[in-house]
């Protein structure tokens, strides 16, 4: 009992002062979306799954593209005035699975590891976090797809000059590179939104692969005449067919054409992202 009484009365005012509390010497800045984007960029580049999925993506697009190109060039086949850009389609179709995986992982892996709680404590504005994730992922996916598609397109044009392939026009180049890249980046962003909604990596990836393949598979087994229209619509609006629209070698002549697929995917992704924004606001993390 060596502590005398005097300190006691002083504590109350001290506390009043302490309400405003300890002040950090580090200046407090006003944070905005830019900070979250910088943070998400650090996140996406600092995990191996990004390198793996994007590496496999480039490998698939360039590898399969090169093989098809070599096979056709080796067989002296005649393309009969077709655009050689369409040969890149198969690689991109398979590669889209990688983008789906990466998109889902960008959000769902945070929920899986619990990192999301750390993130939400660091930035309680959940909308800002999701927006930053979507922007960073979209840009990464777009740039990587654009580079791969352009590279394989140029290789195909160079390889198949002697096989009767026509020289693609500027519009065809734009659709075969920027168009398809926009489409795939949006597809990946849709996966990101689904990952945020489902919060479970495996579940979200399964759903997205179902979205990618199910319409085609289901349509294959619709033999009944009464279902002819449904079958047709499923074919035309299946993701592989929408992708092939960019190369004008669509499975059917009606259905989406030109830049329609980008618009369709933009709407779907917008709706999914909107749902993800709305749901995460009220949900417990």
């Amino acid at each position, binding site marked *: *009992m*060596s*502590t005398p*009484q005097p*300190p*006691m009365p002083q*504590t*109350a005012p*001290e*506390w009043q*002062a*302490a*309400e405003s*509390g*300890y*002040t*950090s*010497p*580090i200046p*407090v*800045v*006003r*944070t905005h979306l830019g*900070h*979250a984007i*910088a*943070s*998400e960029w*650090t*996140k996406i580049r*600092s*995990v*191996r*799954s990004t390198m793996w999925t994007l590496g496999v993506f480039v490998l698939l697009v360039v590898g399969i593209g090169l093989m098809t190109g070599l096979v056709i060039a080796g067989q002296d086949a005649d393309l009969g005035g077709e655009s050689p850009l369409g040969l890149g389609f198969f690689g991109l179709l398979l590669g889209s699975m990688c983008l789906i995986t990466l998109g889902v992982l960008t959000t769902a*892996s*945070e929920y899986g*590891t*619990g*990192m*999301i*709680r*750390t*993130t*939400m*404590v*660091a*930035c*309680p*504005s959940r909308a800002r976090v999701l927006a930053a994730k979507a922007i960073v992922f979209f840009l990464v996916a777009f740039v990587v797809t654009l580079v791969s598609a352009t590279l394989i397109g140029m290789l195909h044009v160079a390889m198949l000059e002697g096989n009767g392939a026509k020289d693609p026009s500027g519009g065809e180049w734009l659709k075969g590179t920027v168009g398809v890249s926009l489409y795939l980046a949006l597809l990946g962003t849709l996966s990101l939104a689904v990952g945020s909604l489902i919060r479970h990596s495996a579940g979200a990836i399964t759903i997205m692969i179902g979205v990618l393949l199910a319409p085609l598979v289901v349509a294959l087994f619709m033999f009944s005449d009464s279902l002819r229209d449904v079958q047709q619509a499923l074919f035309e609006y299946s993701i592989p067919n929408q992708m092939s629209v960019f190369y004008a070698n669509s499975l059917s002549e009606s259905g989406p054409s030109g830049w329609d697929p980008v618009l369709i995917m933009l709407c779907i992704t917008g709706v999914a992202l909107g749902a993800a924004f709305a749901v995460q606001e*009220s949900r*417990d*993390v």
Partner: protein
Amino acid sequence: MIEAVGLTKRYGDKTAVYDLSFQVRPGAVTGFLGPNGSGKSTTMRMILGLDNPSAGHVTINGYPYRRLPNAARHVGALLDAKAVHGGRSARNHLLCLAQMSGIPARRVDEVLGVVGLHEVARKRSKGFSLGMGQRLGIAAALLGDPQVLLFDEPVNGLDPEGILWVRNLMKSLAAEGRTVFVSSHLMSEMALTADHLIVIGRGRLLADMSVKDFIAANSAGFARVRTPDTEPQAREKLSAALTEAGGHVLPEQDGALRVTGLPLPRISDIAHDNDVRLWELSPHQASLEEAYMRMTQSAVDYRSTTDQKAGLQQPLPPGALPPVPVPGQGQPGWYPPPPPQQGQPYAPAQAPAGTPAANPYAQPAGQPGQQAPQAPAAPAAPPANAPSADDLTKPEDAR
């Protein structure tokens, strides 16, 4: 300053937290105790805006967490050390958090140094031990140099050196005027670290008072009296005399007596009057653990039972005695009897003899009894004696 008012959280028909109101003040370490599943983590998540309360609200410095401008610069939290992406290096993990709040990148290296992880800064956190993960979590909490800090089980998995470090860290953070709110199961640790306690059980507030008051209110100190082993009749005699004098006597296993309700000098006088020699007469102050166990006895959801191994045991050989169970296990009455109404039964009330009686904080003996566990309805009252927390513990150490 954290302030919860009527905080309630329901998951379906299960109520995890019910009508919890408390304040956590700056300048002190406030311990947050409760059995497993009592709602500690849920409460912490609600404070941090991760879970939305079903009713009531909680604010930090007057704002709900999600409305705080640049929250990470005001509040730092260690919730779950495993809440990191294992594939990311420690430095990148902290860097992405720093960027989120506009904290300069060199601060990352600073906190890595503070928690002693600078050598493994570039290693993936997947390979970290429990203790290293805990250090990384503490680094994340310290990153924004915040005024308010929340730690959920910070010493989990730390080595003794780490535990000592965390203890001193908490105290120094509080001494700088910050609000420090720590949950823990380790009572011995809390007794050393915390100034103030908030105890919950089954999601309800059980106590909100200083550590010293808490111990005084929830467990009796006792005197251990040992008579010469060679004279069993002296023990009987003394025991009867003490009971007659109003004491409560419990025999201990090794032949000593556990006496409550009588001050030490009185016990000595009685022994002298009855012509009984004493080998031991020692005061025992109940520990925080004891006080805590008593308070939460009825609020424990997950209770262990003695392993019966029914039907699996070999029949005992003739003449052999069954093994004596370890004292305390599965025995509800192991902890000392409840304190008499007046709180402290013996010495402690008299020990601070030199203290001026005018000191309002030197007489908490009666108070805690009133505001203690039975009254979860009066959680707003404690602030009055809360300031004493710091100063009550100091003299304790000095003795």
